[in-house]
């Protein structure tokens, strides 16, 4: 499986955020609410990761609700690729 690194996922996340006229902060502890990153943005990012790896990423909402920071997003998707 063609797994993306955390840094590569971060680049994709930056693209998603940039497309909405915002900038992804360098600090992984940044709260997602500060940058207006919502569940559909997360979905878009996950689908971009899917496109890059060729593997479907499916997940339940409870896992998503625990995500609060930029770092949480990166960790979640990095872990999801390994499942």
């Amino acid at each position, binding site marked *: 499986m063609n797994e993306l690194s955390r840094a590569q996922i971060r680049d994709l996340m930056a693209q998603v955020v940039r497309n909405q006229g915002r900038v992804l902060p360098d600090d992984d502890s940044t709260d997602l609410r500060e940058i207006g990153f919502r569940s559909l943005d997360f979905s878009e990012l996950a689908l971009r990761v899917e496109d890059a790896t060729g593997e479907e990423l499916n997940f339940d*909402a409870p896992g998503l609700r625990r995500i609060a920071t930029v770092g949480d997003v990166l960790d979640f998707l990095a872990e999801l690729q390994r499942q």
Partner: protein
Amino acid sequence: MSDSPPVPASTVVLVSGGSRGLGLAIVTDLLDAGLTVAAFARTVTPELEKLADAYPDRVHVGAVDVTDLAAAQRFLRAVEARFGPVDGLVNNAAVGQDSMHTHTATADIARIVETNLTAPLQLTRLVARRMLGQGRRGRIVNVTSICAQRGFPGLVAYSATKGGMDAATRSLARELGGRMLVNAVAPGFFASEMSAVLGSTQLDQIVRRTPTGHLTEPAEVVPVVRMLLCAHTNINGQVIVVDGAASI
């Protein structure tokens, strides 16, 4: 058809998914009301076993996956052999969902549709064929959901199946021409298993928007199910929402 006598109250009722939550509450309530009840679920819980022990002459329980039609058929025949014809059906068994549609595995979508829509349609067909073949009248109650009428994120496939059952309820009522009363009960969100899939923010929002100020409890739904099975009414092909007016 205009001369059809009223459909009598159900006396022997089959309840799918009767081992816990609303299903168990329905089984308990119907037993308290003096009916004979056959209940199955994937797993027979200690609570359901306890009811079977308490009412040995009026309860038949079994471990049946609702998607296993052959097993459901065997269960139905065993019930008929023990209690006589089944003249009431409560389609309650269902699986929940808590995932965005775009990130729900295709196998999970298929499982939700099979359990919540295909299986109850098959079970209804099975029971209706038995009733019609024996020249009997009976009643069917489908437990659906407010999700069939209002949109909620994370519940796309689930909502579609419940909407499908609401639609089937109306068509069955027409098709069965007054020989059976077919209705649905659509509860709002319970503060229990099914609602565990919603976030606390979502649940708080629902409570705030509910004039009665609380989420629906199974005890508030079972009287409606019992009424549809037992009371002399002309209610047919209807979906009765029990949600404290949260959705209006």
